[in-house]
């Protein structure tokens, strides 16, 4: 990840501040930075979203294409994740430098969606065993300012909420050959339910306390973090320890409780923002990259 040069004195300052529940920018240990979410920013996709979390900037585009269902699950569609760490984010990502981080993030995204309840894959099926919708979720990392996983999961949820998949009908001939017909109305589409899509909450252990939404400087002071993927109902779908340090078992239990609390608040505010944006209708003023 992007590295930042910090002196010993600055690290001690951050660590001591966190012990007193006071971070460098004045937040408490469980506060997020201001998040800006905007959907429908890219016109060529079935759904897209842009999230700005402090200095972290993520752009997600979802494209729905028709493909063959996987052999083990013939009645379901599936999602494919691809994460691209752009060289704009930090010079370390130039060339193939960002590939490792991109694969790690993509694997984490596969893991958090790897269960039956996150997204209704059966609704993506068109013809069992023959045709299904494949959602290609492409994540672009435009700027790296700490706490990548959280921002990416928020952006993926917003993009899936915004995804509009064209409605298709399967017509069967007398001979039994199937034909797929697209509906004439371009606005006739199916939407996905993102009620149970999880969001990742990363908790960084700094000293004896843990913080939510760490900036790059705080991440440099932390040796170990716990990544918890939690849904709006408090169900945890993925747990992972990140970093080169170790964690005390008691702190793991505390961090999981914190993630449940913080996750619920994150989900309710994200849902309300997404619904508010949608209620503004297609005539709303789009900010895009100019804001």
């Amino acid at each position, binding site marked *: 990840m992007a590295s930042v040069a910090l002196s010993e004195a600055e690290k001690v300052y951050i660590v001591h501040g966190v012990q007193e529940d006071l971070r460098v920018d004045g937040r408490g240990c469980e506060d997020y930075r201001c998040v800006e979410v905007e959907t429908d920013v890219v016109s060529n996709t079935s759904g897209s979203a842009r999230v700005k979390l402090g200095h972290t900037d993520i752009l997600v585009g979802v494209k729905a294409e028709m493909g063959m269902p996987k052999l083990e699950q013939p009645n379901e569609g599936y999602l494919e994740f691809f994460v691209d760490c752009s060289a704009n984010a930090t010079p370390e990502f130039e060339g193939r430098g960002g590939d490792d981080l991109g694969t790690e993030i993509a694997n984490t995204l*596969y893991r958090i969606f790897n*269960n*039956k309840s996150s997204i209704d894959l059966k609704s993506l099926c068109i013809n069992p065993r023959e045709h299904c919708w494949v959602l290609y979720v492409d994540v672009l990392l435009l700027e790296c300012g700490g706490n990548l996983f959280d921002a990416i999961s928020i952006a993926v949820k917003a993009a899936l909420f915004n995804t509009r998949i064209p409605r298709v009908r399967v017509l069967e001939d007398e001979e039994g050959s199937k034909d797929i017909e697209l509906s004439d109305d371009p606005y006739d589409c199916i939407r996905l339910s993102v009620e149970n899509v999880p969001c990742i909450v990363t908790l960084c252990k700094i000293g004896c306390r843990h913080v939510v939404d760490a900036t790059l400087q705080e991440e440099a*002071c932390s040796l170990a973090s716990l990544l918890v993927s939690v849904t709006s109902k408090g169900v945890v*779908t993925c747990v992972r*320890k990140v970093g080169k340090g170790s964690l005390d*078992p008691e702190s793991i*239990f505390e961090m999981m409780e914190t993630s449940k609390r913080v996750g619920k608040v994150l989900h309710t505010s994200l849902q309300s923002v997404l619904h508010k944006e949608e209620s503004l209708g297609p005539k709303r003023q789009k900010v895009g990259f100019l804001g």
Partner: protein
Amino acid sequence: MPGDHRRIRGPEESQPPQLYAADEDEAPAARDPTRLRPVYARAGLLSQAKGSAYLEAGGTKVLCAVSGPRQVEGGERGGGPAGAGGEAPAALRGRLLCDFRRAPFAGRRRRAPPGGGEERELALALQEALEPAVRLGRYPRAQLEVSALLLEDGGSALAAALTAAALALADAGVEMYDLVVGCGLSRAPGPAPTWLLDPTRLEEERAAAGLTVALMPVLNQVAGLLGSGEGGPTESWAEAVRLGLEGCQRLYPVLQQCLVRAARRRGAAAPP
């Protein structure tokens, strides 16, 4: 040898027949949720590697080899800030490179060697779990290579690979703070799900959620944690972590004995 595709027209891709077979209703036998399968561990068996270990737990067989410390290829970007706790500066710290491979015949279906995403993910999990235990500050500008080969997957493969890798590192004489012991868990689907310790392959396939815990037993610090699936609320995951940590503590004496035996063997074989 390439097949003769012009005269013999076969299908483009071949699939194993089990996919099309009717569901075999082999429910896994009911068992004590806290039972650990008997473990066979042996260290110091490969002559070409600095340190090696073989671990067998039920049907899972893992072979791990460690080589190094070797000089790092390519210059590291120098001048990083000092790490927390007075360790050597970041540029001078050694590196741990982990590689996880599955043999093509390890699972039910044949998987060609470049396994793609899953193997990279497990290799990263190995690295994240072993780094807290190894004193990398004592190997400046060097790299240690750990490669784990899964010969047969009988359930909790990552946990077995973690344990074997820690044994191999200890056998290689790498300075460590403590051994790392791994334990796998899985949660059966159903209305009253319980977490099962050390699942077999059948239990893992039918599981709604899986978890692997890595513990440093003497320091009582969790070195690694990787889990996913419909695990339920956080209390359920916390209970699973506790069960896993207990399992790791129970496994530790076996590994201690294995290392002592390997040291004795090495002592007896060395010329006076």
